């Protein structure tokens, strides 16, 4: 059973990691927690829901193939990226020079607005999503790994590798790193802050959107309040890994997923979320800046 729990934890952890990256990237540059990030993730799932509808796929009991999955994934990520830019422009840019508290309140406000607008527009009921690989799985020993779990892991890893390449080797990626290391120096070097911030929001939101679609397909459901819990979990993961640090967010996400799975199974499912928070608090007391600290120049 241990390996079974590990596999489940890894799949969930991959999703947490994708969402956590958005929190960590924004924090690395603007030093505030974008509470509306979870709602962008929710909107990503809805994007895919409507794209599947548009493609004429039956959502109840429907099965999609891999090309169809990517046909939904890419436009949804783009839409989420644009929404991230818009969110920053309307809710955060006007108060960029204000205190972190006002940014936090503004973020909570944006989260309320997005979640309740979605509830108004799409209805509050849980809606079904089509399946990828209709319930097929492989068995290794006693451990069952479903194709969708593998797919979630593979796509998460691919996206994280792509992000890593982008941050390390492109000009914009370097600019993002420069701003997160030293804002003033970066601006003095002629880096356009607004562009970097927009790019950060776009990338973080697109990844959250991707996570949203995978969660939607993995669990087969989409509903307007799904962002709240996922947001808190991903934020926890980002902190656990050391906020502001992208590899840290990935590590934190995967760790949190595994802790939850194993903690639930071996201690008590009723206390599953409490175990995750306890581990976080203890980890933070021992390592106050998270597991991986923010890199410095």
């Amino acid at each position, binding site marked *: 059973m241990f390996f079974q729990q590990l596999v489940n934890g890894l799949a969930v952890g991959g999703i947490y990691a994708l969402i956590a990256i958005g929190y960590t990237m924004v924090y690395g540059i603007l030093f505030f927690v974008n509470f509306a990030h979870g709602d962008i993730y929710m909107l990503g799932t809805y994007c895919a829901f409507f794209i599947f509808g548009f493609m004429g796929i039956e959502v109840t009991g429907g099965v999609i193939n891999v090309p169809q999955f990517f046909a939904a994934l890419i436009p949804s990520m783009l839409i989420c990226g644009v929404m991230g830019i818009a969110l920053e422009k309307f809710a955060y840019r006007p108060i960029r020079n204000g205190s972190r508290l006002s940014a936090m309140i503004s973020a909570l406000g944006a989260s309320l607005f997005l979640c309740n607008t979605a509830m108004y527009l799409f209805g509050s009921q849980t809606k079904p999503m089509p399946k990828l690989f209709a319930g097929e799985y492989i068995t290794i020993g006693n451990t069952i790994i479903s194709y969708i779990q593998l797919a979630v892991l593979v796509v998460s890893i691919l996206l994280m590798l792509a992000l890593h390449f982008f941050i390390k080797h492109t000009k914009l990626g370097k600019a993002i790193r420069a701003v997160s290391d030293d804002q003033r120096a970066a601006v003095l070097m002629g880096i356009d802050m607004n562009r970097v911030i927009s790019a950060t929001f776009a990338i973080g939101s697109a990844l959250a959107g991707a996570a949203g679609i995978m969660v939607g397909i993995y669990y087969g459901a989409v509903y307007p309040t799904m962002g709240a819990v996922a947001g808190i979990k991903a934020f926890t993961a980002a*902190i656990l890994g050391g906020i502001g640090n992208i590899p840290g967010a990935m590590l934190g996400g995967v760790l949190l997923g595994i802790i939850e799975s194993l903690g639930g199974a071996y201690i008590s499912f009723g206390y599953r979320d409490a175990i995750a928070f306890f581990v976080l608090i203890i980890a933070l007391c021992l390592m106050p800046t998270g597991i991986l600290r923010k890199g410095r120049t």
Partner: protein
Amino acid sequence: MDGEVKRSVRFAVVSWPLFVAALVVAPVFISNDYMLHVLVLIGLYAILAESLNIVVGFTGQFSLGHAGFWAVGAYVSAILMIRLGLSFWTASVMSMLAGYFTGVLLGLPAMRLKGDYLCIVTLGFGEIVRIFATNLEVTRGPMGIPGIPTPQIGGFSFDSELSMYYLCWACAVVTMYIAARMRHSRFGRALMSVRDDELAAVSLGVNMTYYKVQAFGIGGMFAALAGSLYASWTTFISPDVFQFSDSANIFCMMILGGLGTIAGPVLGAFLLAGLPEVLRQFAEFRLIVLGLLMIILMIYRPGGILGSYDTAGSTRQVRRRKIAREV
């Protein structure tokens, strides 16, 4: 500085009696139980926001788990009253003690953590309290605790909305008054020095750990009082009364009204607990509008409605300094 203190003292002489008098006579104009009920709820939120203000506004420690203290107070008081048959008054004092010690306990990680790290730890605390309330036997899990006795004094029972209105607002005014006195005391100044510049405070001999832990303790104590009042007022508590959304709500009340001020959190409670009731017929839109209002307010009045710009400025300075230090 001296002039400002004098002015504020002179003003306090007028404003406090006026505020209290308004609260005392308000029920004369409100015969409606529903209005009184909402006012009691606002009073409870005023206590909660005011007590959170001691932690966040005075001491500058983020806390997103205030509903956790509220729950601790409510459960301790309810269990003591039902299991041990204690009176409301004894039980509420015990629950305040429990709130205080829980606060001190939560304050311990605060010694080492700052800003968003503290934010997630306090958020986790709120969730942990709720999860324990859902899973323990003594709290009756999700079934909740019904039949909590109402406060009694002599032969008089606080079982009407009117009597609870006076009791809750008396507690709220006491909380406000203590917070106001604290702000101008040596203790309060020490808290604010920790908020404005930890390094300078420590080098001037302020025992930072002690003040941080005390701030959490006192904040937790008053929140527990609100919990105890809530339990005896509605006579039923269950874990889903104390959610993360309540912690966030209390936090917003404090910020919207004006961080670090005394009247601010109370005004915030009026706005965020009162307005949704007034707007009940627009139920579908009220949270959408509230979200927009929060963003707009932060753009145009980042210090909150009653807040001065200094409080907003001081955190900004801290952040600048922090950035400078990291460089």
